[in-house]
């Protein structure tokens, strides 16, 4: 009988702590959403490197919310300490209503600790370090005017800010939502952790989803805003860029931007450090580590913990739907302004610039540049716009980091 009672008690205890008893309907909805995202990442291969860990982080936190719990202090009486086999010695005492309690520190969940890299703004700049190692700024140096397109595509960020303000978001929240238009995941995460950390899950998922959907979102906008004649323009071959120019570029950019806009320094600084690793050619081992091992490790931590911020209670709200809609507007506006400025450049250069390269100014490297190439080739199969589009594309990375600096400065302080 005693054995049966013990068995029953154990089973009841396990049931009480199980997800069946503790999870609510929001968690189950989020579990379903995370499975859909896993499907999109694995089967459709939508940004799988990030979507897969994000979706799995989302799944984990909704199955076991305590995995994101911060460390806390439990107050236990002497009897409770004895029952839980907690050593009293060395624990601070607190007397409440005449009862003595002992402070028993509890540890946080696994993902809580990994999340500190996101919360403290450490992971996004480290991702930028790896991106810098993989980026060739040659097309941008060969044609510096493409920076105009990189700047134009950031207009979507600021216009969406207005939309968010009028939809009832606060200034910092609107700033974090607007940055989705920069189409740069690490920048979006960095700005959101500084301005509106409670919206991180929704913003990160919106940003990465839209980046994965670049080939679907951008072409209709590009085609609607350009004529067939403009899309057929074959651009002149870019001049070769010397090694010295490539080495000087990251040094000059970081000096200029860090002096003018210190808030953008962590992102731009790491991007340029990575690029200097690559271009200098003297630290091959470090460059390889930054763009492979380090970046892969950070991607795992970043993706999983960002996904883990999307618990049912946080994610399933009207705000998330608004963010998803505003994100799409931001992205589309960025693309549209890039193409429109491309058209301006087409006019001013007497038809030498193909406006399609403007859409690549939204970052999303290198997908956006590939889309420019693809749309251009649909009109003229012998046209190769990829290298020309890489200029605005990498300019967009710098542009969105500068825009992030502006937002942090204007609405973050």
């Amino acid at each position, binding site marked *: 009988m005693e054995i049966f009672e013990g068995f029953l008690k154990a089973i009841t205890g396990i049931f009480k702590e199980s997800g069946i008893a503790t999870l609510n309907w929001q968690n189950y909805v989020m579990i379903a959403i995370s499975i859909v995202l896993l499907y999109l990442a694995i089967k459709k291969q939508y940004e799988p490197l990030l979507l897969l860990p994000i979706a799995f982080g989302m799944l984990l936190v909704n199955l076991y919310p305590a995995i994101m719990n911060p460390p806390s202090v439990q107050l236990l009486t002497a009897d409770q300490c004895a029952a839980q086999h907690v050593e009293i010695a060395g624990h601070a005492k607190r007397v409440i209503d005449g009862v003595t309690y002992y402070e028993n520190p509890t540890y946080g969940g696994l993902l809580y600790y990994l999340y500190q890299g996101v919360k403290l703004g450490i992971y996004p700049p480290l991702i930028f370090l790896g991106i810098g190692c993989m980026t060739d700024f040659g097309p*941008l*140096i060969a044609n*510096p*005017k493409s*920076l*105009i397109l*990189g*700047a134009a595509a*950031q*207009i979507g*960020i*600021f*216009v969406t*800010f*207005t939309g968010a*303000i*009028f939809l*009832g*978001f*606060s*200034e*910092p*929240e*609107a*700033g974090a939502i607007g940055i989705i238009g920069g189409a740069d995941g690490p920048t979006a995460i960095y700005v959101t952790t500084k301005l*509106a*950390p*409670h919206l991180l899950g929704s913003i990160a998922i919106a940003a990465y989803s839209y980046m994965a959907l670049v080939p679907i979102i951008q072409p209709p906008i590009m085609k609607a805003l350009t004529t067939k004649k403009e899309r057929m323009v074959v651009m002149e*071959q870019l*001049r070769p*860029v*010397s090694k*010295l*120019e490539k080495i*000087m*570029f990251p040094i*000059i*950019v970081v000096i*200029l*931007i860090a002096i*003018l*806009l210190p808030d953008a320094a962590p992102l731009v600084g790491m991007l340029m450090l990575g690029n200097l690793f690559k271009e200098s050619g003297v630290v091959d081992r470090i460059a390889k580590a930054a763009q492979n091992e380090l970046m892969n490790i950070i991607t795992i931590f970043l993706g999983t913990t960002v996904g883990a911020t999307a618990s049912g209670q*946080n994610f399933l709200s009207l705000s998330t739907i608004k963010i998803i809609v505003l994100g799409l507007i931001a992205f589309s506006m960025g693309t549209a302004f890039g193409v429109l400025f491309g058209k301006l450049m087409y006019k001013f250069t007497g038809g030498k610039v193909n406006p399609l390269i403007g859409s690549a100014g939204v970052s999303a490297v290198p997908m956006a540049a590939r889309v420019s190439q693809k749309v251009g080739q649909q009109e003229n199969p012998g046209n190769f716009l990829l290298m020309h589009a890489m200029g605005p594309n990498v*300019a967009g990375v*710098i*542009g969105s980091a*500068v*825009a992030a*600096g*502006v*937002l942090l400065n*204007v*609405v973050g302080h």
Partner: protein
Amino acid sequence: MYLSYLANAGGIAAELSLYEKWISSAKVILTGFAVVFAVLFLLIGIIKIYSTIVQAVQNKNNVRKNVRNQKKEKIAQPDDSLKKPSIIPARKSDANEPVVSDGIDEEIVAVIAAAVAATYGSKGKARIKSIKKSGGRSAWANAGILDNTRPF
């Protein structure tokens, strides 16, 4: 500060008045436009300036190298060119001619030139300035790298 926010994360923002919303939007749009374009325009200017300087310096160095090579050629074969002008015409030095390092066959130079011409087309402005072997490390450099990476 005329705007107020809720201090607690996750809360709903304090509702701004219509006037405050307009002011806030205008402030951010104007600052964003101005700063992003100003910084990137400044960057365009700086890239253009330093690119021009670097290209000018490198062109000068290339011309100097070419001149030095021509002098070396003249010193090495001063009499031959004078003795047999009808059989082997004295090579007319050309500043556009690529500087080719020793040990590379003329055939390889011709293949590289053909590949460049095929890529850029006959109307392109591509010009081969120099061809040299790359990637080779000295024995000492190889020994140093081996020594440093052995523990890994």
